[in-house]
C-alpha cells in the first residue's frame, strides 16, 4: 500500500466538496481518476499531493501523514507531472530531468554519481536518452511530456501523480503516453495515479479506476465493474452524448425522427448504420417500413433503396444520403 486516505474530506476554504474518502493506491498499479469537468478531480489531486490542505481527515503515504513532512521530504515521496505546456526555456532534456534530483542535491545543485545514474535510467525508461542534449523547445508536445515524466522518475518516488498529462496531445501521443505509464507501473513497481478525460482509453488501460460521480462520491473499482454497474453511463450522461455500455465508447445522440429499415451485414452495414444515424434516421433491423435499404445485393459497395414503390441502386454512402434526402423532402 503506497497511499491511503482516512476519512478525507477535500475542498476549498473549509468547505467540503467531496466527503469521507477512504481510498488507496497499490504498488505497480495504474489508477485513473475519472469524472466530469469541474467535479473536483484537480482538488482531489492537489489534496493528495499536499498542495491544498485537507478539510478534514488525513492522507498517508507509506504510513506517513503528509502534513507532517517538509516540502523537501514530500518531494521524495511524490513525483508530479502537469498538463500545462512548458514555456520553452533554454534548458536541455538532461538539465530538466536533472531537476528531478533537486530534493537530493546540495545547495548548489551539484550532481553526484548516483544522481547522474538516476537521471540516465529515467531518460532510458521513457526513451528520451537519444536527445538528452536537445533543448526542450526543439521537441514535440508528446516528447516534452515524456521528458517531464522522466523528471518525475528521476525524483525516485514511490508515487507518481499526473494531472491530465495527455491534455495537449494528439490521439497517437495520448495512446503512447498512457501505454508508457502502464508499462512504467509494472516495471518500476510504482503507484501511478493520473486524472484524464480519456474515458475509453482509461477503461482499456487502467488497473483501477476512481470515478467521481455527479453526486460527488468517489467510487473505486475495476473499470469493467463500474461499467457493468452502469456507473459510467450515469456519470457521463450528456445532452448530446451517451456512454455505450456495450462498446465502452461514447455515442452521439442524434435526434432520430425518421425511420428506415436496414437489411444486410458486415462492415458495410456498420458504417451505413452510423451514416444513417447521423442523418437522423432511426434504424429498424429487418423490420419493414416505408423506406428500405438493402446492402450488398450485387457487390459490397452497392446499396438499394426501396421507397414509394420504386427502387434506386447506389454506389456510395454519399449517393445514398443524397437520395434519402430527396425522398424525405418529397414525403414532407
Amino acid at each position, binding site marked *: 500500500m503506497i497511499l491511503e486516505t482516512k476519512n478525507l474530506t477535500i475542498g476549498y476554504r473549509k468547505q467540503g466538496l467531496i466527503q469521507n474518502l477512504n481510498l488507496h493506491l497499490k504498488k505497480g498499479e495504474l489508477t485513473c481518476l475519472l469524472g466530469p469537468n469541474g467535479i473536483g478531480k484537480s482538488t482531489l489531486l492537489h489534496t493528495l499531493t499536499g498542495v491544498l490542505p485537507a478539510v478534514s481527515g488525513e492522507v498517508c503515504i507509506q504510513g506517513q501523514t503528509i502534513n507532517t513532512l517538509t516540502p523537501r521530504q514530500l518531494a521524495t515521496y511524490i513525483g508530479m507531472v502537469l498538463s500545462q505546456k512548458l514555456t520553452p526555456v533554454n*534548458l536541455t532534456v538532461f538539465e530538466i530531468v536533472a531537476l528531478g534530483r533537486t530534493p537530493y542535491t546540495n545547495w548548489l545543485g551539484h550532481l553526484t554519481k548516483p544522481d547522474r545514474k538516476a537521471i540516465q535510467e529515467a531518460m532510458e525508461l521513457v526513451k528520451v536518452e537519444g536527445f538528452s542534449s536537445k533543448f526542450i523547445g526543439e521537441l514535440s508536445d508528446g516528447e516534452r511530456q515524456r521528458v517531464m515524466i522522466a523528471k518525475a522518475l528521476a525524483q525516485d518516488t514511490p508515487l507518481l501523480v499526473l494531472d491530465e498529462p495527455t491534455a495537449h496531445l494528439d490521439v497517437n501521443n495520448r495512446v503512447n503516453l498512457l501505454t508508457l505509464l502502464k508499462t512504467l507501473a509494472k516495471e518500476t513497481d510504482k503507484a501511478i495515479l493520473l486524472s484524464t478525460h480519456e474515458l475509453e482509453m482509461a477503461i482499456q488501460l487502467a488497473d483501477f479506476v476512481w470515478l467521481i460521480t455527479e453526486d460527488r462520491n468517489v467510487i473505486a473499482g475495476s473499470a469493467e465493474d463500474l461499467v457493468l454497474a452502469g456507473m459510467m453511463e450515469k456519470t457521463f450522461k450528456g445532452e448530446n452524448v451517451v456512454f455505450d455500455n456495450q462498446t465502452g465508447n461514447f455515442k452521439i445522440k442524434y435526434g432520430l425522427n425518421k425511420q428506415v429499415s436496414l437489411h444486410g451485414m458486415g462492415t458495410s452495414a456498420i458504417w451505413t448504420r452510423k451514416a444513417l444515424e447521423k442523418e437522423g434516421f432511426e434504424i429498424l433491423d429487418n423490420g419493414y417500413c416505408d423506406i428500405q435499404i438493402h446492402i450488398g445485393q450485387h457487390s459490397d459497395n452497392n446499396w438499394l433503396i426501396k421507397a414509394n414503390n420504386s427502387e434506386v441502386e447506389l454506389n456510395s454512402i454519399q449517393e445514398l444520403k443524397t437520395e434519402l434526402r430527396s425522398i424525405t423532402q418529397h414525403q414532407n
Partner: protein
Amino acid sequence: MTFIRSKYLMFYIIASALVIILFLLDIRYGTVNIPLDQVVKSLIGQPLEKESWGFIITEFRLPKALTAVLVGSGLSVAGLLMQTLFRNPLAGPFVLGISNGASLGVALLIMSGNTLFNMLYQLGNWGIVIAAVLGSTAVLAMVLLLSVKVKDNVSLLIVGLMVGSATGAVVSVLQFFSDAEIIQAYLIWTFGSLAGVSWEQLQVLTPIVFLGILLAFISQKQLNTFLLGEQYARGLGISIKKYRIIVIIATCLLAGSITAFCGPVAFIGLAIPHIARAVFQTANHSVLIPSVILIGSVVTLICDMIAQMPGEQTTLPINAVTALLGAPVVISVVIRSRMMKTSI
C-alpha cells in the same frame, strides 16, 4: 546542475581580463586623457608625473569606474532574477517600473514632508537607499500581483509601463505641491549618473550590491526549478514563498540602490541576461549568474567610455547610451519569441 565545463572556465578568465582592461581604460579616458602607466601607478600607490592626475583619478575616475562595475553587474543580476521570477523574457528593472518605484521612494523622502520620511532623510545616503529600495519593492510587489492575472509577455510589459507611469505621475503631483527649493533637491538627485557617485555613497552602494548578488547566488538551485513554473518547483520540494521573497528582496536591493545613486539606467538589466544566454545556450543559473556579472560589467564600462566621448568636453547621459545598445537586443528577443523559439 552541470559541472563548470572548461569552455565556461575559459570564458570566465577572458571576460575577467577584459573587465580589468576596460576598467583601466575607463580611468584613462575622459576630458583629460591620462597615460595608462600613470593610471596603473596611481592605483598601486606610486607617485605620478602630474599631481592633478592623481586627484582626477582618485576623486573622479576611480569611483566612476567602480560604480560602472557595480551598476553593470547589479542591474544584470536584477534583470536575470526578474526574468526568471516572471518567467518572462521581457522583464527587467527598467521596463517593469522598478526604477520608477525607486524614484517615487526618493521623491517621497525629499518632498512629502512626512515625519517618518524626514527621519529617513536625516540618515543621508542610507536614507535615500532605504527609500528607493522600499519604493521599488512596492512597485515590484504590485506588478507581481498583477502578473498572476496576465499570463502573456506583452500584456505584462504594458502593465509594467502603466504602473511605471502611474508612479511617475505621483512624483509629478508631489512636485506640484512642493517648494522650489525642495524640487531642486529632488531634480539634482534625478540627474544622477555614474560620475555623480561619491566615495561616501560607494560605501553604501557596494555592500548592498554584494548582498543582492549573494542572495541571488545562494538561490541558484531554486531559481533553476522556477524555470519549470511554480507548480513543478513546488513538486520538487521548493518552498516557493520563501524563495520568491528572497528573489524580490535581492532584485529590489540591487535595482533600488543603484537607481538611488545613479538614476534610472535603461536596458542593462533586460539585455545582458539575453546576451549571456545567447553566449552559453543555457538557462542554468549557476552558469548565468557569474556570466551576467562579467558581461554586465564589460558592457557598462564600454557604455561609460562612449558616454565620456574621450577628448570632448561634454558627456552623454549614460541612460541614452545603454538604451541605444539595449533596444536592438529587446527587439531581437521579441522577434525570437514570436518564432516560438526559446526565450528564457
